[in-house]
């Protein structure tokens, strides 16, 4: 009793007006949940001009907007979207450049520099009477072998400790609204398969609950607004 299978296409080109129509379909849920639209990726700030244009259009309808970024872009990209952003989600994968490079193939200099600048800017916008972004949620993925349990290091959480110190040292901490440790999960394996690629992390398991708790405690001891959902 099979209805038959179809072909699956992922990704489609859309004009801003088209996207506005599509996103508006969920407006009653944005309202009831206090939520809105999140731009993610890939890296949305690589399309900062187009993104800003789209966000401006959405703002005319009164939607709340969040930008989810890895932060590895010139600060000017942030400036383009700042007027329309209500919340930033910002990934910090590692503190040490070498650790970051090993995991992603690129260094984290810009990422580390942009975050304090972003916080300062948000703070200034709000203090200056303008209605600025609410703030930033920092997300720290916890990935065994990449920023946890590093080869040759006896301190399992060494890199994460460094991340915590870095976060504690940030200026304008009142705009740092949340710190979320995120355990590695294997849901992406399917995507690799679909693209006909080998997934490099098939051997990995998610970190144990105890490790996640320990990291959480670390963050809380630094006075950071951390939680495990």
């Amino acid at each position, binding site marked *: *009793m099979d*209805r*038959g299978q*179809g072909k699956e296409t992922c990704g489609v080109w859309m004009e801003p007006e088209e996207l506005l129509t599509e996103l508006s*379909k*969920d407006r*009653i*849920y944005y*309202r*009831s*949940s*206090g*939520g809105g639209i999140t731009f993610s990726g890939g890296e949305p700030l690589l399309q900062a001009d187009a993104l800003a244009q789209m966000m401006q259009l959405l703002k005319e309808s009164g939607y709340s907007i969040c930008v989810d970024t890895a932060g590895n872009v010139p600060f000017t990209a942030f400036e383009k979207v700042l007027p329309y952003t209500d919340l930033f989600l910002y990934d910090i994968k590692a503190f040490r450049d070498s650790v970051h490079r090993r995991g992603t193939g690129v260094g984290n200099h810009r990422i580390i520099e942009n975050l304090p600048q972003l916080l300062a800017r948000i703070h200034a916008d709000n203090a200056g009477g303008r209605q600025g972004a609410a703030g930033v949620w920092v997300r720290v993925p916890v990935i065994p072998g990449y920023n946890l349990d590093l080869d040759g290091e006896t301190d399992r959480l060494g890199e994460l400790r460094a991340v915590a110190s870095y976060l504690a040292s940030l200026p304008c901490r009142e705009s740092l*609204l949340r710190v979320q440790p995120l355990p590695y999960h294997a849901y992406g394996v399917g995507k690799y398969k679909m693209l006909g690629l080998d997934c490099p992390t098939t051997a990995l398991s998610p970190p144990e609950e105890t490790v996640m708790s320990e990291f959480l405690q670390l963050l809380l001891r630094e006075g950071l607004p951390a*939680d495990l*959902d």
Partner: protein
Amino acid sequence: MRVSGRWEVPAVECSQRIARIRDHRIEDHDRSQIPHRDKVYAEEIAKYPDEIKAVQFARGFSRFLMEKKIHLNEWDLLAGFAYRYTYNTTLPVDMPSDYDPRFRPEGDVETIRETKECEEYHGLKEGDADYENMEEFSRGILIWLFKHWESGHILPGYRRVIKSGFGGLIKEAKDALATADEQQRPYVEAMLICAEAAAAYIHRFEEKAARMAEASEVPEYKAQLEKIAASCGRIAEGSPETFQDAVQLIWFVQEMLYVENDPASISLGRLDQTLYPYYKADLEKGILTYEEASDIIDALWIKFSANLHAYQNVTIGGTDANGDYADNDLTYIMLQATRRLRFDQPLISLRYSDNMPDRMWAECMALLKTGTGFPAFFYDGAIIPSKLKMDISEEDTKEYAMIGCVETGTPEKEYAKTEVLRINMPMILQLLFTHGEELLSGERFRLKEDRDLGSITSFEEFYDWYKSELLHFGDLSMHCVNLLDPTVIYYYPTPFLSLTMEGCLQKGLDVTGGGTVYNNSGVSLCGESNAADGLMALKKVVFEEKRYTLEEVAQALRDNFVGHTELQNALVSAPKVGNDIDEVDLIMADLVAAFAELVDGYRNPRGGKFQLGLYTVEDHSKMGVYTAATPEGRPAKLSLANGLCPEQGLDKVGPTAVVNSILKTDLSVATNGMVLDLKFTPSFLEKDSHMDAVRSLIEAYCQNGGMEVQFNVVDRATLIDAQQHPEKHQDLVVRVSGFSAYFTTLMKATQDEIIARTEYANM
């Protein structure tokens, strides 16, 4: 920012004495009681040949209560045990001496017999228009074009009984007898006989409990039995004085209602509101604690669940006369009892309102996570105004409670006959392709306008034709249901139920004849989204793309798509309800609105209205099994869509799209209830943020026109395993349609249907 710990609830565990009761709960089943009941009824009917049916049944009721086994175990907190003495059918008027009700048709109504009884009652003969109508209706029922069921589905007057006690009702009946005329007298007599029988029945328990207390050597049991004896002594004629009294009396009423000829879904109404004054009084006197009350409710819940397949529905929450949310300790106790025990009954129906407090949300979500499908959410903001349109008084609309699956009614004042008719929409669509021939059975039905498919040149023409035939079959079936209506008081009255209902003693009229305040009839649709999807597919494939003709579709339906794969794929690829696509969603909205308009104009012989339901019980599977291939690309015998939901598995965008689709239909017409079922995996509800999301979904749905929503929270792997290894999953309870059930007891088509429903793991 949301408060952390907002979803936390207290852990719940059965007390030792409840665990003992729970573990022995169905031992008292004794199927030999079933023919015993009917034998007693048959003998009393034979003994009083000149009395009306109501009096004959009252005598049967009375005698059986004196002879039947009564149940009280040494360790019980509450006395009694109920099971259904009849199944989904009415008692035959002329019962043969060897009639054994255990061999009644399995779950099926005895349509042929009821039709003959109806034709006899009206003096209809072959050749009469209504004879032909009844015959066609009857044939339609046999092949599931229609469903007709004189079922229970009632909200009895428990409050009336606990307010007056049976002693008070006996007095009320005697007063009514003094002023009754010739017409009313026998009905009042029947109710009086039932009231006296009820008091005598409760005395049997008093006596048994006292004897057992005397003989008991376990101090704990002895004390409990003495309490029961004293309680029964008070409530045989008097009103309850304690919380336990009130619960025990309500339970005895329940037992006796099931003895009477009214099976299925005898629903308890707003039980948390009903029992609260007794709970509060005991608490203030210091003779009851929260924990003791929890044990008593647990014991009551266990009794409900031991009454198998009975769909007893308890309503909790809701608003009071001022519109404030009416949660109380018992509301929480009842939610916790269900979370503790996890049976399929009682059904828990939540009256939800915008001002429901966070603590209620937390308890409800914790219960949803158990996967039992409770509670179902019913929105006060939609239901109260819709009932006003049904001529229910403003005061009474605020007291509404759920019956059966998801139907709404006014406790003790409404006889709603909620299951009296259901109509198979996709089958009607199939009939258009075959000049009225139903393809699986070969039965023929008269179309209002039989047409040649070749003569239809536009989609609008075809659509209007379908709508017209849908309304035609609606009209035919409601007309026949109205013909059956007056036979019920003649052949199958229910005097004990009538005793409890407001108005019956006063009017001297059985509830089946219109004795209570509101006397309605319920008609439901089945396969709304199948029909909409089918019409959309025809619009696209036949009329817009012109890839196939209607005749080719007709042939494909005849062949069940064998050899027509391309055509079937084309039909399946058309837009489907549930994906927030206006074109197809608005077809469903239009069909429902058109049918609602027809229903709105209908009255029944008891002075009441017809109410429209958009829920299907298990009929979506049953009707599916009997329905041939249909134009949405559905192969023969596959289950139809559940309630108002999209076809199983064909909503591919997510729950917000499903809700958006459903909201395009005006749900305020569903005064006989509706079902929107959403399925989540258990792991999804582990996260606080996800529970926040589900809460937002429910709030948005209700604030934008929603009326009812319910949840299935069980993963596909578990269901498939339960199908393959039922012995490992005997206790698995799932949400079916407007009710929950033990998964392993469901027919395979229903199990498959539940498995096929879409699971939302990401929102």
